[in-house]
């Protein structure tokens, strides 16, 4: 068990006069239980120490603790959508053996984006092949593979697909809002 950090926070200035107000000291202790050098269980204790006016004797008046226990190999929940520092959201690799073919690796996305981009790429006449996969359900990224004819390039096709989807969503939003206004307006 290792004591990792403690933090003191004083919101008020200290004076030598008797204090008529209550002074709050916030103390956070974070304890880590280590196994294989990875924190298995963290417990943090927050204590509020209130000082009495005449006899300043700190005592714990309230206690909160949050204990988060993670399974051994499970990643954190926010890993599903938070891109870590230093990793690019989208990167691509051209295929060395086939011309006009590339794989786009999109970090922290899933079937929601993958399927919709793939179906839009299918509509492009210049696209010979378009597919996506999740290499592993616990690795939160997708790989989109695009082959095009020589009239276009995978990058162009990808950008066109995204732009078309963006316009389609704009149209859908306008149509939906108009319909809501029509229905609610008709009720009154």
């Amino acid at each position, binding site marked *: 068990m290792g004591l990792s950090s403690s933090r003191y926070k004083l919101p008020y200035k200290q004076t030598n006069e008797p204090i008529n107000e209550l002074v709050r000291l916030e103390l956070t202790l974070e304890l880590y239980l280590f196994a294989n050098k990875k924190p298995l269980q963290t417990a943090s204790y927050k204590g509020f120490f209130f000082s009495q006016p005449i006899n300043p004797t700190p005592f714990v008046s309230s206690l909160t603790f949050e204990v988060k226990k993670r399974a051994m190999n499970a990643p954190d929940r*926010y890993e599903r959508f938070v891109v870590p520092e230093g990793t690019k959201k989208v990167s691509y690799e051209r295929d060395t053996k086939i*011309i006009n073919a590339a794989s786009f690796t999109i970090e922290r996305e899933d079937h929601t984006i993958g399927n*919709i981009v793939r179906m*839009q790429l299918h509509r492009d006449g210049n696209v010979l092949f378009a597919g996506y996969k999740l290499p592993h359900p616990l690795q939160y990224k997708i790989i989109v593979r695009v082959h095009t004819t020589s009239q276009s*390039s995978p990058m162009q096709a990808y950008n066109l697909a995204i732009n078309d989807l963006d316009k*389609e969503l704009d149209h*859908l939003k306008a149509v939906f809002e108009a319909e*809501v206004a029509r229905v609610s307006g008709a009720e009154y």
Partner: protein
Amino acid sequence: MEGASYQRFPKVKIRELKDDYAKFELRETDASMANALRRVMIAEVPTIAIDLVEIEVNSSVLNDEFIAHRLGLIPLTSERAMSMRFSRDCDACDGDGQCEFCSVEFHLRAKCIGDQTLDVTSKDLYSSDHTVVPVDFSDSGAGYENPEDQRGITIVKLRKGQELRLRAIARKGIGKDHAKWSPAATVTFMYEPEIHINEEMMETLSLEEKTSVVESSPTKVFALNPQTHQVEVVDPEAYTYDDEVLKKVEAMGKPGLIEVYAKEDSFIFTVESTGAVKASQLVINAIEVLKQKLDAVRLLEDTVEADDQFGELGAHMRGG
């Protein structure tokens, strides 16, 4: 770049619209778009929910983390959520995620004094921001006030002498992180069915056979018109794509009597919200969030230009 566009132009028709329930038809778009909307509505539309609980006094029968868990699941009105910042992205507060821009503070003080059991409910949670409050579930427009429906969500029950005092911080989050942040109760969509009845073959059936065909469907899709003795489609959308009618028709020796097609680009959505966001607002927010996700996934300028050079070079070298 070339002016070619493979954009679709979807159409929407709303069938039913209430505060927490919306039923609408979505046409001329793909199943992938309908599914993406459904996934985003459930998991990625942001809401506000209690995330940190500081308990001062708890002498109730439930332990601290039990009560904290229940508080987290209480739906809070989250109109502010789309414009709020995530706590982890907020630079205004000094790192503890409790400033006024990225969080809302609640407090609850309850002590049972009388002999009767005190019900601590979501109505006892007091918010520092009047736009973010626990959702009110009372039936609006009820004839007379039924006190049982208006009490709010029970958090804990206290006996005489038991007390509960706590302070809670609510933050913005998405359903992907924890289900308490999901604004949708259920979101479903189905393909719109197209049912064809072969009238000529139908003529060859006796009344009993027609009745048996009508009865073979578990849901009321067909009905026998009492005057004309014809089998009619009464409610095509009650069809749940079980093939009971088709099996019955084949067993009778008349395949092709009834044919059902699912229209591939026509969907009927049913959206039920928890009350955190209005149902219509939920769909609009989902479209907005999906747009933001697509924007994040665009190729950056530098990679495209660098490759364009190589692309042209390569094209020249290949004689293309």
